[in-house]
C-alpha cells in the first residue's frame, strides 16, 4: 500500500526522523493560512502517489502567503503528469505547505527488502535528488549498503559507517547516523516494504532533514497495523481495481481489448502472454483465486466487462480444488444475469471438466468452447 508524502512524514516524525515544518491544505485559502503560520519562504508540494512531481510542475517555491495561495490555486485540481502517472496524469486534491530550507547538500537514503539476501537493506548515496534506479544502473559504486537483521535492528556502527561513507563529518555525521537509526525503526515497526528519503538534506547550518519521504507498506501485514491501513487514499487508485479488491479478486487494468478471467496469478499472467502471442492485447489481469464460487465468477465478469474497451472475454480455468462445473455454472449465471454482449471463449481443464463442457453446451448461450490455452487465445483474439 502506498501513502502520501505528508502521511509518511508524520509517521517518520514520530520515530524521531527530522522533517520540515509543514501542513496539508485542501484549498488555496488553507494554503495561505498555512504559509502564514509557517512564516517566510514556503514550498507548495502536490500530494499524489507518484514520483517526479517536481519536474511535472507539482512542487513550487512561494515567497510568502500571497504567492502560496496563488500557486496552490493553480496546483489544486490540476492533472499532474509525471513519468509515473501515465499521459492522463493524476488529479491533485491536496498540497503540502512546508518551510523553505537552505539546501547545502542533497543525499539519498532508502530501505528495501533485498530478496536475494532475505533481509532489509539500508542504502545511502551522495546522489540525492536523482532517480536512484538510474544511479544504481550507471554507477552502482555510488550506493552504499548495509543489511539489517530484524529484531537486532540497525546498529549504530552501521549507521556511522554509512554517514561517514557519504562524506559527512563531525556532528552532522552523528546526526545523520541517528536519523538513519530512526528511519530503520520506523521501517521495521510499520512492516514497510519501502522507506525512501530522496533527497536527504543537509542545510547550510548543518541540520539534517527528510526533504521528501516515501513509504510503501506490506499489504500482507496491514492486518496488524490498522492505523496505517486507514491512510489508504482510494482516490489514488483505479476504481475498478478497488471494486475488485472488495470482492477478493485481484484485478489490474491494462490497455488491450481481450478481457481475461483466470484462476491463479501465474496462469493469469501466462494467459495475458499467450493472448499477446496470438496477436491480441489483454485488457486486464484478473485472478479469481483458488476458492472462487459462482458469486465470485459473477463479480469477476461484472468488473472486467465494466471496462468498455473489452470486445471479447477469455475464461481460462485449470480446476484443482476449484471444480470446473462450479465455474461453468457461475459463468452461465453471470452471462444470463449481466446480458453479456461480447463473445465469451471458455477453456476449462482439470477437475470435472467434462461436466463443465456439458453445462456450457446445454445453457443455450453462445459460448465458444476452447481446447487448451493456445486454442483459447486464438479464438478470443479472433473474436475480439
Amino acid at each position, binding site marked *: 500500500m502506498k501513502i502520501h508524502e505528508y502521511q509518511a512524514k508524520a509517521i517518520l516524525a514520530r520515530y524521531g526522523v527530522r522533517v520540515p515544518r509543514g501542513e496539508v491544505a485542501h484549498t488555496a485559502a488553507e494554503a495561505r493560512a498555512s504559509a502564514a503560520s509557517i512564516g517566510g519562504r514556503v514550498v507548495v508540494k502536490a500530494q499524489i502517489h507518484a514520483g517526479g512531481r517536481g519536474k511535472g510542475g507539482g512542487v513550487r517555491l512561494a515567497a510568502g502567503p500571497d504567492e502560496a495561495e496563488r500557486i496552490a490555486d493553480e496546483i489544486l485540481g490540476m492533472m499532474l503528469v509525471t513519468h*509515473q502517472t501515465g499521459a492522463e496524469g493524476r488529479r491533485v486534491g491536496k498540497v503540502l505547505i512546508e518551510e523553505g530550507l537552505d539546501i547545502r547538500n542533497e543525499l539519498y537514503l532508502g530501505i528495501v*527488502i533485498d*530478496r*536475494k539476501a*532475505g*533481509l*532489509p537493506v539500508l542504502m545511502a548515496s551522495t546522489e540525492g535528488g536523482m532517480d536512484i*534506479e538510474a544511479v*544504481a*544502473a550507471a554507477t552502482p559504486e555510488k550506493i552504499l549498503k548495509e543489511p539489517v*537483521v*530484524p*529484531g537486532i535492528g540497525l546498529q549504530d556502527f552501521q549507521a556511522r559507517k554509512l554517514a561517514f561513507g557519504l562524506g559527512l563529518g563531525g556532528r552532522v555525521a552523528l546526526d545523520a547516523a541517528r536519523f538513519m537509526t530512526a528511519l530503520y525503526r520506523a521501517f*521495521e515497526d510499520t*512492516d514497510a*516494504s519501502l522507506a525512501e528519503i530522496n533527497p536527504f538534506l543537509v542545510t547550510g547550518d548543518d541540520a539534517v532533514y527528510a526533504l521528501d519521504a516515501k513509504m510503501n507498506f*506490506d*499489504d*500482507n*501485514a496491514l*492486518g*496488524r497495523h490498522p492505523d496505517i491501513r486507514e491512510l489508504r487514499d482510494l482516490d489514488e487508485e483505479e476504481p475498478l481495481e478497488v471494486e475488485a479488491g472488495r470482492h477478493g479478486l*485481484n484485478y*489490474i487494468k*491494462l490497455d488491450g481489448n481481450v478481457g481475461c478471467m*483466470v*484462476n*491463479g*496469478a*501465474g*496462469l*493469469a*499472467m*501466462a*494467459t*495475458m*502472454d*499467450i*493472448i*499477446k*502471442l496470438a496477436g491480441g492485447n*489483454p485488457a486486464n*489481469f484478473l*485472478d479469481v483465486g*483458488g476458492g472462487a464460487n459462482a458469486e465470485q465468477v459473477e463479480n469477476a465478469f461484472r468488473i472486467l466487462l465494466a471496462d468498455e474497451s473489452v470486445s471479447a472475454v477469455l475464461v481460462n480455468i*485449470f*480446476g*484443482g*480444488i476449484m471444480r470446473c462445473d462450479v465455474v461453468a455454472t457461475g459463468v452461465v449465471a453471470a452471462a444470463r444475469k449481466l446480458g453479456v454482449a461480447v463473445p465469451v471463449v471458455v477453456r476449462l*481443464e*482439470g*477437475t470435472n471438466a467434462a461436466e463443465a463442457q456439458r453445462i456450457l453446451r446445454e445453457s443455450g448461450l453462445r459460448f465458444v468452447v476452447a481446447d*487448451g*490455452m*493456445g486454442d483459447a*487465445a486464438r479464438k478470443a483474439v479472433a473474436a475480439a
Partner: protein
Amino acid sequence: MSILVDKDTRLLVQGVTGREGTFHTRQAIEYGTTVVAGVTPGKGGRIHEGVPVFDTVAEARRATGANASTVFVPPAFAADAIMEAADAGVELVVCIAEGVPTLDMVRVMRFLESRPTRLVGPNCPGIISPGRAKVGIMPGHIHREGPVGVVSRSGTLTYEAVGQLTARGIGQSTAVGIGGDPIIGTPFIDAIRLFEADPETEAIVMMGEIGGTAEEDAARFVREHVRKPVVGFICGQTAPPGRRMGHAGAIIAGGAGTAAEKMKAMEDAGIRVVRSPADIGAAVSSVLG
C-alpha cells in the same frame, strides 16, 4: 525415486482441525499419503479425520515419528507454525498459506539458518510425487508417475504444465511449487539440484515469473552443474512494470526482474525456453527424445 516426499513421508498437518486443514488432510489420505498426526493447539487428544491431534508439534513428532509437515494455519500465524515445526526437528515443512508478511519470513529464514529443516513455500501448492505422496493442495488425479521433475513459482500454472505432460503420456517424478512470495524457503536452485541428483528424473521443467533474480541464479547453476535437459517458461512477459501481478513477488521493480532478462539468462544457460505456455508439453517431449 523422487524428491522431497515419497512413500517414507510421515506427514503431520498443522492446523488440521480448520476448514482447509480438514479438507486437504482427507485429500492427502485418499491419495495414499501417510498422514500420522495433526496439530491444533488446545485440541490435543482428539481424533480428527482418523488422525490423532496433538497440542504441539514436538509432542506429535515424539509420538508418531512425523518427518514432514504441511502448514494450514492463517497467514498471520504461519511464521510461528513454521518455526515450531523446525524447533521440533521436522525435516520438511511445506507452507501453503498466501499472505504471510514479508518481515515474518525474514525472521523465519534467520531462524532456519541454524537448523536442518527445509522449508518449501509459503504461498505455494506444495509437493507431489505421483503415486507416492501428496503434500499440498494440488489435484492428485492430473498427475502420473514418470521421469519429469517440475518446479514452479505458481500453482495453477504448475497444474497446466503437468496437465500437458500427462496428456502426452509423460509422467512426473515430483512436482514442486516453490511459491510466489519474495522470500521463500526453497529457491529454484535447490529444487533443480535435487532433481539433478535424482536417478529417476530425466528432464526438468522450471516455470518462473517476473520479479527478483531467482531464475537468473538458477540459470547460472544449470549452466555449471546440470546435465539433464531443462525446459523453461517465464510468465509475465506482458506484465506492466511497477505493478504487483497477484503474487507478492511478481513485480518488475526499478526495471529489474523482467521476463526478457530471465528468458535470456535461461537460454544462455542452454535451457530450452518456450515463449508460449501451451508449448511446455511439446518441448519436454522433444528433449526426452
